[in-house]
């Protein structure tokens, strides 16, 4: 099947990865999968967010850590809709707005909402986890916001759901009692394989106690949520239909935990004959077996590292080791791996980080590969200010959204950053199309596009 991939991107960039011979960044690449669980009927799934209020009530939080802490704690309680206010209660704007005088800042403290792009961080989170993010404000504030973030989802303040959590923080432990079921769940993931795999490993952990079955064969069990287990499941998978089943029981006081946290998290790498890798993570494609046997959709309750509640220990990582700069380079798609005849000089320079591509309006960069390569991340470096991006796959000439990070989203997010990393569940591509489009009225300079690949055995 001819597979090509198009990354449509409007950008802002800058950066530059410094290249020292042997430095390591722990937990890089970030690992895959989200925590899933089941909501109660009538759960409150929305939270309003006032980041100005949050940092006053919870001083010290800043940057991506602030977003991940706020969202992580809310998601742990079953929240998946965020209504992020553009202004605080006193009318200060909470993003790098054109009306700079209105932007919230505490100079001595280093808090300056003009220097960190919170809308971008929220949208990256939405891409990663699938939660909904809507920016709310007055009509005037929305109009101004839209100039910078034309594709962001916005709504008037009145549209915030009554009774929503927030606006400064969700007490997740309290809220989850109301929002999440507290009994044993059977969670299944059904999938097809064209052939029996040559290799397959499954990493899993769960809040409480889990039992894992692959095609009705019991594989393992554990009760320590902070550490995951990796199982070789290749012998139990087969060509045709497969089902992985997790029976998860919330228990308290199990090893390594002070109390149980409901949830299930896994990721799986499958290698099929011919060497092709397939990937499957805990996500909304899983189903929970209801009382009558009906399969119901789970909800996302968190992601790794989003606060103490979901801080996993080292062994539970992707099946990728920590990368040093050398290994990092090994995983960066090189010019030699492209279809040289079809690769333009411009695209070549971008891949090599030698470009200085000025983008004024929409610009598409085509990166044809010599053979299909499994990618897990796209990194765009440059100097710029705004980006809208979505990841689509071309099938038989028709564009369609592929898996994470943008699967299921009605419209692409918009972002502003000086460095853009787009991690996603690995997908094999033959041709990558990167469409760059700066924010209206801006010119941007893109220096490098890096395609990160999965190293296949």
């Amino acid at each position: 099947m001819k597979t090509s991939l198009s990354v449509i991107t409007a950008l802002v960039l800058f950066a530059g990865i410094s290249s020292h011979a042997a430095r390591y960044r722990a937990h890089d690449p970030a690992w895959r999968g989200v925590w899933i669980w089941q909501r109660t009927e009538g759960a409150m799934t929305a939270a309003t967010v006032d980041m100005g209020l949050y940092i006053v009530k919870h001083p010290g939080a800043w940057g991506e850590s602030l977003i991940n802490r706020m969202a992580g704690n809310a998601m742990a309680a079953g929240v998946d809709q965020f209504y992020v206010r553009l202004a605080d209660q006193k009318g200060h704007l909470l993003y790098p707005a054109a009306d700079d005088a209105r932007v919230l800042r505490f100079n001595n403290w280093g808090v300056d909402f003009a220097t960190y792009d919170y809308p971008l961080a929220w949208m990256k989170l939405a891409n990663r986890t699938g939660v909904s993010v809507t920016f709310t404000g007055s009509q005037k504030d929305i109009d101004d916001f839209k100039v910078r973030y034309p594709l962001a989802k916005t709504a008037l303040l009145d549209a915030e759901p009554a009774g929503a959590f927030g606006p400064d923080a969700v007490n997740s432990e309290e809220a989850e009692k109301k929002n999440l079921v507290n009994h044993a769940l059977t969670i299944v993931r059904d999938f097809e394989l064209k052939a029996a795999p040559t290799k397959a490993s499954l990493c899993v952990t769960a809040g409480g106690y889990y039992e894992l079955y692959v095609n009705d064969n019991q594989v393992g069990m554990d009760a320590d949520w902070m550490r995951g287990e990796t199982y070789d499941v290749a012998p139990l998978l087969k060509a045709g239909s497969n089902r992985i089943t997790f029976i998860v029981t919330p228990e308290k006081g199990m090893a390594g935990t002070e109390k149980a946290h409901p949830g299930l998290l896994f990721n799986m790498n499958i290698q099929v004959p011919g060497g092709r890798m397939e990937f499957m993570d805990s996500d909304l494609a899983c189903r929970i077996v209801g009382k009558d046997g009906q399969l119901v959709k789970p909800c996302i309750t968190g992601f790794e590292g989003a606060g103490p509640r979901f801080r996993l220990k080292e062994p539970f990582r992707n099946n990728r080791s920590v990368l040093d700069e050398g290994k990092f380079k090994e995983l960066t798609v090189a010019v030699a791996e492209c279809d040289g005849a079809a690769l333009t000089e411009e695209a070549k320079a971008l891949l090599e980080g030698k470009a200085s591509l000025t983008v004024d309006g929409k610009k598409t960069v085509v990166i044809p590969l010599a053979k299909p390569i499994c990618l897990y991340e796209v990194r765009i470096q440059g100097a710029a200010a705004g980006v809208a991006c979505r990841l689509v796959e071309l099938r038989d000439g028709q564009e369609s959204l592929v898996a994470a990070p943008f699967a299921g989203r009605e419209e692409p997010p918009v972002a502003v950053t000086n460095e853009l990393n787009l991690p996603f569940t690995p997908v094999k591509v033959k041709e990558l199309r990167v469409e760059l489009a700066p924010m209206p009225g801006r010119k941007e300079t893109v220096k490098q596009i890096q395609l990160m690949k999965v190293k296949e055995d």
Partner: protein
Amino acid sequence: MKRLLIFLGMLSVLVGHGEETQWRSDAFAIWPVKTDFPLQTSVVSWSDWLVFMNAHSREPGVRAIINEMTGSGIRQLWWRTFGGGHCLYSSQVDGVTTGNYAGQGADFSKFNSLKEAVNFGHKLGLTVYAWYTPMEEAHGWADNVRSRYTDMHPEMSDIDQAGKVLNVPSLFYETYRKYKLDLAIEMLECGPDGIVIDFERLGAPPRRNNWGYIPALLEEYEKVHGKGGKPQPNDPDFMRFRANFVGMLMRDIAAEAKKRGKRFMIMFPHTALLTAHTDIETWNKEGFVDDFYMTCGWPFDSVTQELLERYRQKLGRRILPIQYGFFGTVPELIAQGQKLASWGVEDITWFETTYLHGRDKYAIPTTLACTPQCEMVSPTELDFSGGGELSVYSSAEWVLRYGDAVLGQGKPGQVVKLKVPAQAAKGRLSIAAKLPPNALAAGVGLQGVAISQSGERTNVATDGTWTSGEGAVKTTGLMGIPPFLAPLDEKGDL
């Protein structure tokens, strides 16, 4: 009295056009610190604040921690540079593994937290030491925050008495010592006042006396001491021989510190002066260590006192105790601090700020260090002949005077903006303030402008140049940062 209230009411009218909306960078919270009480130190593990507190991150996170700590009268900090095998600042040393909690948005490789802590701490007049744990390549258990250096250099693994390869590099190897030294140099280059080497943290698994049975090391030992085979782990000669490889690193770090005019300190567990990894007596005799800190149990009791005295006599110098554990009520802990002071301890080190913060125990150092009430006076006479504007915020009740005239007063946690009427004569500002019981922070911050009759404007702000008869006035925070976060914008309070 009624007339006074009316007068105060007139003064307290918010100033209008041209008012300042931000605290200036020269406006500090100040308070007198007792001169007859020991220095108080606290260690700061920023990564703990990130994970367990409010996701403290980047400059706002670092500044909030330090401001809060300083507000309680702590004057010295040890800033943690490593969590197990993960570096907590943006190190550039080859081979280093930098902390990165992906889901928490905390990538330590992108922010030099040590430099920020040093710069901000110095701005507040604190002494800031880099706290270095070179014996650790993991913390708590073997796979927790484990360094990649360990995995990448199996050829330098230590070996135990039973011949087990331990997958932790040994400082017997010069390459490994050089790597550890490069990290120390990098820390010193960030500008701290010194470096503290921690021998309480020995890694995971912890380095023990039955380590160091590397064939090349044993051969060398035989050459030097004429003892072949496998000496006993607790053989003093063999312990001293192995500890000397650690000593080589210590001497090198100390030399680098001295070269830069920095202090070099060692923290060791109270259990022994000599192990296979530490040789406190020898290092003390060599004279390259500026201070020794000893970790003790908890609470401080006669056993602690005896230990301190024993080691003090043995080493012929002061030994500073560090409590390990943080149990008890605020009054009990205050009593412990007072007990240490009565023993003549000159530096009380708290482990650590997360405990002080998390349990609202900042009342402990605040009570111990800060005078319960004070009167502080501006260093120079000011000219308000054309009037002026002042903003005041404090954790205490306060009254502001100009000479004998009361300009304003306020309660803890309220911003008060004053319009100062024209004053006939030059004079000094004075602030009389009183802390509420169990205050978590002590400080009064003031900023504004004095306007002369000719229209000349002079900035006024509280800083360390103010004086007090009750103690040594110190900056206890920078205004505009918790716990002295008090926006001056047009909407007033939070």
